[in-house]
């Protein structure tokens, strides 16, 4: 039977490991830059998940290491058996109910984040149509955005601080329109139009990658999204509209 001291020591070691783990989780840069409001919410959710996971992993490893250290067969015990413990109802109820509660709590929180990320915000929202094909992304800005004829382009510009509703289609096979800096993606499926909305909140240019195997050109089916100030966005749309009459 292990002594109280050894169990207490293991408990302290576990607490220290948990603390170190949680501290590390703040220090590690897990993600690319946050470039959307949705990214902030998702990153916080991830961090909560990591912090919830560390004690569980530490518990499992601590019990294993403690058992290996304390209950290892010693010379002379080759024919000895362990204690005939068949179960402990209270413990079994605890380790069923507690994880269930934690999991339901986490999934509820995740639904709050999902709702927050997907609800249409008050204020302006523009629609940008995205078309995936083997092996390039093209974009169409409808009349509601251009104020004139729709604009077809291979460049993706969006205004900072305004909600963008991406309407995504495919011309051939299934692709996926992933903007890692926004933490958002959805498949482009032939026959339907899929949507997600994002509120960019950081100026800059970020990678757009196709994230679903679409054939030999999948690895290089990439694009860029440029988040610019709203006035710059208007200017860009106007200039593209006048010098490149759309043929969509």
């Amino acid at each position: 039977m292990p002594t109280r001291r050894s169990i207490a020591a293991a408990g302290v070691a576990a607490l220290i490991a948990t603390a170190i783990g949680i501290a590390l989780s703040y220090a590690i840069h897990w993600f690319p830059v946050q470039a959307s409001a949705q990214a902030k919410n998702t990153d916080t959710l991830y961090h909560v998940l990591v912090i919830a996971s560390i004690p569980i992993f530490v518990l499992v490893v601590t019990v294993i290491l403690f058992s290996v250290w304390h209950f290892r067969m010693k010379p002379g015990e080759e024919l000895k058996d362990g204690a005939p413990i068949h179960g402990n109802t209270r413990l079994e109820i605890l380790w069923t109910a507690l994880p269930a509660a934690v999991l339901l709590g986490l999934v509820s929180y995740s639904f709050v984040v999902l709702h927050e990320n997907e609800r249409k915000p008050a204020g302006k929202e523009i629609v940008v149509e995205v078309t995936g094909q083997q092996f390039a992304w093209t974009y169409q800005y409808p009349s509601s955005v251009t104020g004139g004829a729709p604009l077809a382009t291979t460049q993706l510009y969006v205004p900072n601080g305004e909600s963008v509703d991406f309407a995504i289609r495919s011309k051939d096979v299934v692709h996926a329109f992933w903007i890692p800096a926004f933490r958002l993606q959805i498949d482009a499926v032939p026959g339907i139009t899929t949507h997600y909305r994002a509120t960019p909140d950081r100026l800059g240019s970020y990678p757009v990658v196709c994230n679903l195997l679409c054939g030999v050109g999948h690895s290089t089916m990439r694009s860029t999204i440029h988040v610019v100030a709203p006035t710059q966005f208007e200017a860009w749309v106007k200039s593209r509209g006048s010098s490149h009459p759309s043929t969509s």
Partner: protein
Amino acid sequence: MVARLRAPGLYRAGLGFLFGIAFAAGLTWVVRASTGHATFHHYLSGEAITTVSLIASPIFFLVGLGGFDYWLYWAAGRPTRAEDHSSHGAHSWKDYFRINTDHKVIGIQYTVTAFFFLLVGGLLAMLMRAQLAQPGAQFVDANTYNGLFSVHASLLIFLFVIPVFAGLANYVLPLMIGAPDMAFPRLNALSYWLLPLAGLMMLSSFLAPGGAFADGWTAYTPLSIDAPIGQDFFSIGVQLAGASSIMTALNFLVTIITMRAPGMSFFRMPLLVWANFATSLLVVIATPFIAASQFFVLLDRALGFNFFNAGAGGDVLMYQHVFWFYSHPAVYIMMLPGFGIISEVIAVKARKPIFGYRMMAFSLLAIVALGFTVWAHHMFTSGMAAWIRIPMAITTAIIAVPTGIKIFSWLATLWRGILHLDTPMLFALGFLTTFTLGGISGVMLAMVPFDIHVSASYFIVAHIHYVLFGGSLMTIFAGVYYWFPKMTGRMFDERLGKWHFWTTFVFFNLTFGPMHILGLEGMPRRVATYASKFADLNLLISIASFGLGLSTLIFVYNIVTSWRGGPRAVANPWRALTLEWQVSSPPPIFNFDRVPTVVGGPYEYGVPGAVHGIFAPAPVPATVGSTPGTTPTGAVHAPTE
């Protein structure tokens, strides 16, 4: 020579294979000719012949091999060959290369074949990691690379993990329940021989014009509809593997339900039996759905159907729903037998009863039931109706509860045990660590906003390998080492075993740990090249993966040399209570000279005088005047003392 070709066996099977091609040519010619020149300009079409051959040749191969002999004779009304059991069992290596009805032979056939495909699939992974060591093109073009990861996954899932568990259980399970063999030995033999056919079919797709099937093991439509003929090698190969799996599962269910030794109630069964019972339920219910998904694909490809042609009213997402309705339960098919193995190993190596045996059994059944309710968590970003994500996320979170119960119960089994830290136990403890990590990343993925970011990225690759390698493969190694003495009659080298474990554990974590970060940072999966910011981690991963590949060679060397010339094993080297250890190593040809009677639980270590199964002397007739040696029910009674 003619005798060789007329008798059931590999020569006649080869003839059957060739006949299948001729049959395919004839059938396609007749159909195309009768449809007319307007539709088919050429009546002989290489592609059509190949596609039909992929179905016909394996079937005629099995006919030639003798797999259907008994049933064909019976159906034709001819006298069936009396089963005198003379061909049962193995006396030389040749007995492993024919239809053999002995579950012990079949178990070894399965296990050795599966490990062959582990090595092939692993080699494909090494080629992939060589390509990914640096950004840009290295060794292979994009189409070949796509073929590499597609065949890698398909072989390891359908030709390694699923069959190796079937093989280990095939060997051990009848022994564990006190049965002389499985309920359907001929079906058992047939189910094995489907496997080499399926594996060779998938592997030979590399030789097909257009290359190997290259759309992932998931073969999403419509990409797989327009793919070159290599795709059919997967769509049909997976049917063969699926048929094998279903036959075996049916066999296990009937065997477990009807052939347990007297006294072995359900709650006196070892947990390996429970685990295979649960897995077999999953297999028989779920596997037909992947067959269906591939039939849809074949019909679209070969006969111009429009299931997945959006322009003609098809529904692309329907494929994913049908596919994942099998493929999610498939991951539990690939894990539950491993859970059973871990229960056996930990109980014996800790010299303690499994903590919470009943809840362990119930949690297996809970995973089976819940496993059918979570499939669309593979489709959170698929564009399906948004509301489906909600119940699927809830059920995905809930399924972590029975899994957690099992992990905690194994940990509690260690507590106050006497731990024998040999190779099987090390793999069991390693499994507890890495599978917990895989489960944690799985819970993260149940949270929809997070999954929306990392779906189809390297975070997923990390998760699946933590649960399939750190989970399933660790349990497979534990089981192989644990039952090696029983199956071969020899002991493996313990020092090499420990080396194998530690190199595997270290290189595994170095290979797949960093992949979590790559996914979070934005690297997609199934790519032959990547943005240069991912280069450093990919190089580290590739180097670690080569170490992981080399560590497997330690295992192969150990097994081969020990099997050939290791020290002879006693009947019960681990001093275990379960029935398979109460017979010689290897067991007698029909397992038990007399059917044992089970009088207690399977894990009563530490209980003085506890017995699981007893081998009674000759039974006394129940009534005076009945035939000596039998009772009216045929049951064996323990001597009353």
